[in-house]
């Protein structure tokens, strides 16, 4: 029971981290109409810039500066790369972002090498804030939760309560009309792309110290971010939040509990064959949830695409 609470917190951290990535990706999707394959690469750039800046100016400056730099880079990519490619249609855009992802990975390996870099959480947060039945909850995790919630609240406020947010929403849905009303839509798109990549960079700076900062980190997290926004409904911000939390909890709980497939099958009334030694189903019966936990989100995505192709949580709009 105590472990349940700890798992809820851990899953929340994972989910909110996923949300920071998927929020930007889903906004960019609404804008471009295609998935940005390079999104997780901006997350990785955030972590590496964060590491480099933290060497000279400390973690807190890194948390501020790295997203600004990455956001600026993202805006430049949109202005001078994507915007030109956009004329040639979605396929060209898709391939462009794919190429960009590979390019960023190579660049990171070139400058920082292929090994893990020692990016550490700040000293000030390097302690256990509280513990539940012997399970320490590091202060850094709680800090991650607060940052993610602040970002969600900020985004929601800007997008729904401010004039800029209204223009962005309008521009995402009806760019031509908004342009006809005298707004600079290309500039809005550039800013959305910049903010989206900056959000990914924030996630990178705060996740780098806990999940590891290495050239494979974009690849490792990239796939799951796509899963998140597909499950949440492409283009839906609240859907991205729900899906992130759902996936965060699914993976955490699956890893925490040793529920085997045999238990589940027994529970629904299927009896395990007595002599399993030579049965071709032996491996199947011995599968445990923790063994397949990290794969479950992909299963969820496939099921979502089959039964609710618009996403589990999409109701329309943001």
């Amino acid at each position: 029971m105590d472990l349940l609470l700890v798992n809820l917190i851990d899953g929340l951290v994972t989910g909110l981290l996923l949300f920071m990535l998927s929020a930007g990706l889903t906004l960019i999707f609404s804008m471009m109409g295609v998935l940005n394959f390079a999104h997780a690469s901006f997350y990785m750039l955030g972590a590496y810039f964060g590491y480099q800046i933290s060497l000279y100016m400390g973690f807190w400056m890194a948390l501020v500066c790295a997203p600004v730099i990455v956001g600026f880079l993202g805006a430049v990519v949109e202005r001078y790369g994507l915007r030109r490619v956009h004329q040639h249609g979605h396929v060209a855009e898709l391939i462009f972002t794919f190429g960009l992802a590979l390019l960023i990975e190579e660049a990171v390996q070139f400058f920082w090498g292929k090994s893990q870099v020692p990016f550490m959480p700040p000293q000030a947060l390097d302690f256990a804030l509280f513990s539940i039945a012997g399970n320490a909850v590091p202060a850094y995790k709680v800090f991650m939760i607060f940052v993610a919630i602040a970002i969600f609240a900020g985004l929601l406020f800007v997008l729904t309560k401010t004039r800029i947010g209204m223009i962005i929403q309008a521009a995402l849905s009806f760019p031509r009309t908004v342009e006809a009303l005298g707004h600079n839509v290309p500039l809005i798109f550039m800013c959305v792309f910049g903010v989206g990549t900056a959000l990914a960079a924030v996630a990178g700076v705060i996740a780098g110290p806990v999940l590891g900062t290495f050239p494979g980190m974009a690849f490792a997290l990239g796939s799951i971010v796509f899963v998140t926004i597909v499950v949440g409904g492409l283009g839906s911000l609240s859907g991205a939040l729900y899906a992130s939390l759902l996936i965060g909890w699914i993976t955490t709980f699956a890893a925490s509990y040793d529920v085997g497939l045999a238990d589940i099958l027994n529970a629904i009334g299927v009896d395990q064959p007595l002599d399993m030694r030579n049965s071709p189903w032996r491996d199947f019966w011995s599968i445990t949830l923790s063994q397949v936990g990290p794969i479950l989100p992909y299963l969820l995505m496939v099921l979502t695409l089959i039964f609710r192709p618009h996403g589990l949580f999409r109701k329309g709009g943001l």
Partner: protein
Amino acid sequence: MNKTMKGLCGAVAGALLTTSASYADTIKIAFIDPLSGPFAATGENAYHLFQYAVDAVVNDQGGVLDGDTFELIGLDNKISATETLIHLQTAIDDGVRYIVQGQSSGVAAALIDAISKHNRRNPDQQVLFLNYAAIDPALTNEACSFWHFSFDANSDLKMDALTDVIAQSPELTSGYLINQDYSFGRAVAASATAMLADKRPDITIAGDEVHPIGQVKDFTPYARKIVSSGADFVITGAWGADMYGLGTALISNGFTGPIYTYYAAASGITAGFGEAGKGSLFIVAEGQTNPPVSEEAAQYVSDFKTAFPGENFTLARTSNVMRMLAAAINEAGTATDVVAVANALEGLEIENPFGGTLYMRPDNHQLIQDVHVMAHTDEDIVNALDGSPFGLRVSDTVAAAGRDAASSCEMDRP
């Protein structure tokens, strides 16, 4: 005149043919391992160590036979068996007769299978597989092959050494096994269970689980489960980002006991753990560098670091692979007839500059060498890793581990 010319031409042509058939001035060795992707760091480090070993151990010492030199060709398999087999074919077409691979036992098994088939079908193009790191015990037992040589102590031999150490620590009473879900990870878990039951029946196994390899983003839930299981030590064969993720999650979530590992060092892992890993992380491996065994070994390490600044010196066996291959080629008197080279490798026994002797068991092609348990520490470190003050210091040694361990290998010999 005409006749003379014809005869001369024939003699020259004949001479040319025989030269190209029997005399090769470079002996090509293909290194097939991940040089990009999530496991690139370990692959590239090994590649550099081999590049250095080829020159330092063989080429700069006058080469083999009549001054023939080794040439190392690096091929990136992205840790995929499919890519490996494509590279294997192109390498063979390119004249390569020696394949070096080590990252992932799954890939090694695929290579053994492919090479056995290839050698049966192409007796004039046979190749040898020198495995420097894939340590699934199946490779030198039921899945053994005449064409395959294992230069790292297999995971059973390492586990034997590790459990010897655990057996001598009475304070350890409950262990947790967590491994990557593939052949090697499962082999580690199985041998740990069997050997602990044999050597310390009082130790309980609090948990034995596997997780998908390279798929876990955050190891916190696994760490929670381990902490709450009450285990006082952990054994894992995880490597790369999985090892780092698991170790940091364990330490930051309050696990204080020893974490016995196969691969928790170098590639940024040592620097990443830093002070936090001191007293917690242990590794079972060959190749003692702290404290250095001999002047020669210490010199080799520092020369490597001069040749590849910023690189870690880890796999001491990379030099042993080249040392033994060169010795076998010299003994066989040929580099092209790999059957003769394989026969020369069998039973070959040479001095190991990193301590003890190296002996290639003829019955299963498992190299027998000293196996050590090393601690992650910053005290008495000569060969530090990752540019940090930390490194691995030998705390226990099992000499010639597994020299007469049973093997189920039944080899088909050509």
